[in-house]
């Protein structure tokens, strides 16, 4: 591994200072499950690695009537180990419990998954479904972006040099809501999504009253299926609705052919998963 220096600030102000001083050549480190491999193989380089795990603001996890606040460096295991998140933000705990194996889940964070900005990231479609806002902070101050606007392409996002993700905020779900994330992989576990789908729905009197669908691994970045989500509002909770939703999702994706699956296969699977994920989200909403 190429040489780099290391800092482990314990305050947000110190972290911003050291990142700004290196003007983009310092790399923030959370769980390290992507970064350390990328540094070792030379896919990324760094003069300085800044460990963010000892900054209190990046480790917060509060879940209550005002919604969920999730520090960017909170590891997956703390997310699926939190009963309130499992119940109220199921899509997110679904995703966190299938990212890598146990050892990866002890370290990998949702903030890191987002910042790596892989098109197949498992937690991003779940965050899109759950309407997350991303709080960014840097020398110039802080700002907030909707999670679906965070990634701009494979391994690319809106972060400016020296800027980091501080936390994610997710609104409290309305009564009668449920969510789910599911992916297709050729193995049973420890694999990268060929297609991943996250959905949240609110249901009243047998009708969907609000919905958000996020799609992963079928476009250069995780997608918010805005028109499809809008179309779902007012539809009955029926198999015909889920099937039509799957069909509509197939129209908006632009998948690639690679060793994990062809574009044709991904298109087919997207429809199947949208159908199944909506059915499960509705079941959870009405349980």
């Amino acid at each position: 591994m190429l040489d780099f220096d290391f800092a482990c600030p314990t305050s947000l102000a110190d972290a911003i200072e050291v990142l700004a001083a290196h003007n983009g050549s310092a790399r923030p480190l959370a769980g390290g499950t992507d970064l350390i491999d990328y540094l070792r193989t030379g896919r990324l380089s760094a003069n300085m690695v800044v460990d963010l795990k000892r900054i209190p603001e990046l480790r917060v996890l509060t879940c209550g009537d005002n919604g969920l606040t999730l520090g960017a460096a909170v590891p997956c295991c703390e997310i699926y180990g939190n009963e309130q998140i499992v119940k109220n933000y199921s899509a997110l705990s679904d995703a966190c419990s299938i990212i890598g194996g146990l050892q990866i889940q002890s370290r990998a964070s949702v903030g890191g998954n987002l910042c790596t900005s892989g098109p197949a990231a498992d937690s991003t479609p779940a965050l899109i479904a759950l309407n997350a806002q991303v709080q960014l902070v840097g020398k110039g101050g802080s700002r907030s972006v909707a999670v679906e606007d965070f990634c701009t392409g494979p391994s690319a996002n809106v972060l400016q040099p020296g800027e980091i993700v501080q936390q994610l905020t997710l609104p409290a779900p309305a009564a009668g809501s449920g969510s789910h994330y599911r992916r297709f992989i050729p193995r049973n576990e420890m694999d990268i999504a060929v297609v991943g789908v996250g959905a949240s729905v609110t249901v009243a009197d047998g009708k969907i009253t609000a919905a958000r669908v996020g799609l992963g691994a079928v476009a250069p970045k995780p997608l918010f299926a805005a028109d499809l989500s809008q179309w779902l509002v007012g539809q009955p909770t029926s198999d015909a609705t889920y099937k039509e939703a799957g069909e509509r999702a197939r129209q908006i994706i632009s998948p690639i052919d690679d060793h994990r699956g062809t574009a044709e296969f991904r298109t087919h699977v997207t429809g199947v998963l949208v159908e199944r994920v909506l059915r499960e989200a509705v079941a959870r909403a009405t349980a």
Partner: protein
Amino acid sequence: MATQRVVTATINGRERSFLCEPRQTLLEVLRDVLSLTGTKEGCSNGNCGACTVLLEGKPVVSCLVLAVECEGQSIETIEGIDTKDGLTPLQNAFLENAALQCGICTPGFIMSTKALLRDNPNPTEEEIRFKLAGNLCRCTGYDKIVKAVQDAAQRRCGSGCGCNG
């Protein structure tokens, strides 16, 4: 070269200080600096689980941890598993069920299993297979490892604490 750092961590219950460069992984430091060669290197990219240790009680792949991150933290390796009375029930379960051939994967499996049984003392076969998916074995075909874990879950360590050693 970035300056070497002194890192102090509790390793297998004992506080130890060591020198390392920021770029050195915990796996490298355990093996090459501290001579704790029980932790194995398989892939060095987080896929095989051979290098699994417990960091603050949680299973991690030590090839994806920088040693400098561990300042003030507790690390448990395979060398810290046995007791002065010999092998623990968990180790005996692997031995008696022939859950190893070449043995490269075994320290990692034992460390992951220790964490698994601590959090879930009676896992189903499916849970065992799912939770240990981060550990690869190229020899045994896994069945004997799963049986050993089921067997270990039935055993209890002698200290009366209810753990599986």
